[in-house]
């Protein structure tokens, strides 16, 4: 049995973060959004692009994405990781980045992403067609599931069947996210939203309506990871990586052994083990909510509720503002925004909370955050536990 990586706990910190063009950025490309976010994150860290000697990035469309990013930014990194496991990639990148910093291979890793998904001139229909050709799934595509949404709908159907979870409980996830978004001027959708609004919205793939689904927005996001000793000399309060774990179990939803138990059970276990912490030690949770069922699954699989109990937990108001566990404090993929792959934005919101500059959505005294990314169709899961100096 390999070790719990406890020796890496607290040795690295996120020193800079930034987003750019989130919501709508008409006329921008993926790369331009990434580059602006990268520039701002490096500046936020008190560094210059010349200090960046490590890069992690991923793209949903370009197979060799790290090369044009290196070229565009004008950097000569000694460490490049372009692991692409969907929306969880940018949380998963933390571990290879830490290993590279630990070994001395590099001194400052930039993790960066950009997507012009909402306003891109290439329509999502065209992208969808290209994906069918480039990434065939011959045992699923003939049945025309509306992927990714139908995969999550299948998981929701099974959760409802096994545990009595209701559509109202799923809807409450979206309503709670909206209540957080209403506190965040950066959120894309801030109108009031009720459970009935969600239930009466256009059904897309039963039992999920369009309001059970994340938004489609543009946006770039980036963060900079350095060794902790260096972070303490930089302008921002360091946000330390206390634990990290990534798990990939399958690609197709039809290959999942139990649709109500995700690989977050493994990624969460590993992250908690490295941090020497458990769910009770977490002050804020940023859980990739591509669909309302995701939040329920991750609340359970990361240990905040027993299996099958997340529906009732959410219905009791626990994840909404004022609840016992602040979840998706920026409004999440459901209401803040969702530029194609959301994981990096969950991490950035965790940092924002731990720096104490989250404005009206600030969770008072937050010292620890769990940030969790999901990729594919419940296929990959990556979990990180972040903390302030007080949490070391």
């Amino acid at each position: 049995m390999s070790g719990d990586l406890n020796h890496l706990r607290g040795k690295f910190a996120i020193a800079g973060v930034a987003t750019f063009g989130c919501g709508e950025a008409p006329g921008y490309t993926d790369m331009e959004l990434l580059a602006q976010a990268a520039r701002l994150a490096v500046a936020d860290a008190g560094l210059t692009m010349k200090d960046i000697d490590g890069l992690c990035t991923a793209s949903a469309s370009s197979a060799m994405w790290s090369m044009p990013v290196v070229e565009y930014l004008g950097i000569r990194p000694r460490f490049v990781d372009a692991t692409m496991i969907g929306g969880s990639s940018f949380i998963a990148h933390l571990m290879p980045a830490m290993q590279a910093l630990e070994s001395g291979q590099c001194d400052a890793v930039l993790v960066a992403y950009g997507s012009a998904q909402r306003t891109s001139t290439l329509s999502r229909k065209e992208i969808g067609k290209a994906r069918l050709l480039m990434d065939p799934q011959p045992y699923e595509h003939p049945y025309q599931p509306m992927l990714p949404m139908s995969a999550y709908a299948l998981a929701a159907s099974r959760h409802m069947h096994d545990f009595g979870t209701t559509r109202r409980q799923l809807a409450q996830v979206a309503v709670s996210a909206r209540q957080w978004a209403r506190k965040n001027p950066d959120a894309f959708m801030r109108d009031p939203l009720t459970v009935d609004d969600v239930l009466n919205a256009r059904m897309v793939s039963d039992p999920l309506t369009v309001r059970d689904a994340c938004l489609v927005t543009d946006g770039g996001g980036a963060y900079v990871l350095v060794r902790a000793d260096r972070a303490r000399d930089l302008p921002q309060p360091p946000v330390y990586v206390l634990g990290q774990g990534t798990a990939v179990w399958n690609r197709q939803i039809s290959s999942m052994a139990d649709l109500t138990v995700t690989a977050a059970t493994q990624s969460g276990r590993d992250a908690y083990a490295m941090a020497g912490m458990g769910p009770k030690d977490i002050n804020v949770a940023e859980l990739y909510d591509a669909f309302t069922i995701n939040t329920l699954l991750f609340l359970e699989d990361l240990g905040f509720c027993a299996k099958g109990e997340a529906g009732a937990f959410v219905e009791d108001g626990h994840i909404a503002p004022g609840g016992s566990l602040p979840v998706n404090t920026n409004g999440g993929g459901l209401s803040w925004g969702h530029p194609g792959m959301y994981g990096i934005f969950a991490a950035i919101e965790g940092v924002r909370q731990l720096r104490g500059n989250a404005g009206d959505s600030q969770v008072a005294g937050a010292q620890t955050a769990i940030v969790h990314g999901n990729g594919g169709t419940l296929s990959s899961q990556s979990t990180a536990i972040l903390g302030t100096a007080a949490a070391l």
Partner: protein
Amino acid sequence: MVNQEGGVQAIYQAALDQGRFEIQRCNDCGDAVFFPRELCPGCGSGDLSWFRPSGKGTVYAVTTVRRKPEAGGDYNVSLIDLEENVRLMSRIENAAPEEVKIGMAVKARVTVNEGHGLLVFHAMEGAAQ
């Protein structure tokens, strides 16, 4: 050694095209295997044989994909557990989408359209809830 009939995906589809639904069984650990693979995901063995499953299954998870009537209307997508303990995606063809329920007993059929075989399922007689 390369199989002259091609890889297992081509062999699986060739059987479907002739109206036969065949899946694999591992000769080392005995597990049934679906989707078709060159090695057993249970034990890693490369020694797999084709066989015809009973075709009996149970709906494990279900969704109705909504589509405008002019585009063909709503349709079912299900995950089905076969008696042989494998799971696959398919659709139930002889029931309205809203009638397909988790736990429903279903039976495999192969439809062949212009020489291309596709695995679908029918709700079994009296099985509809």
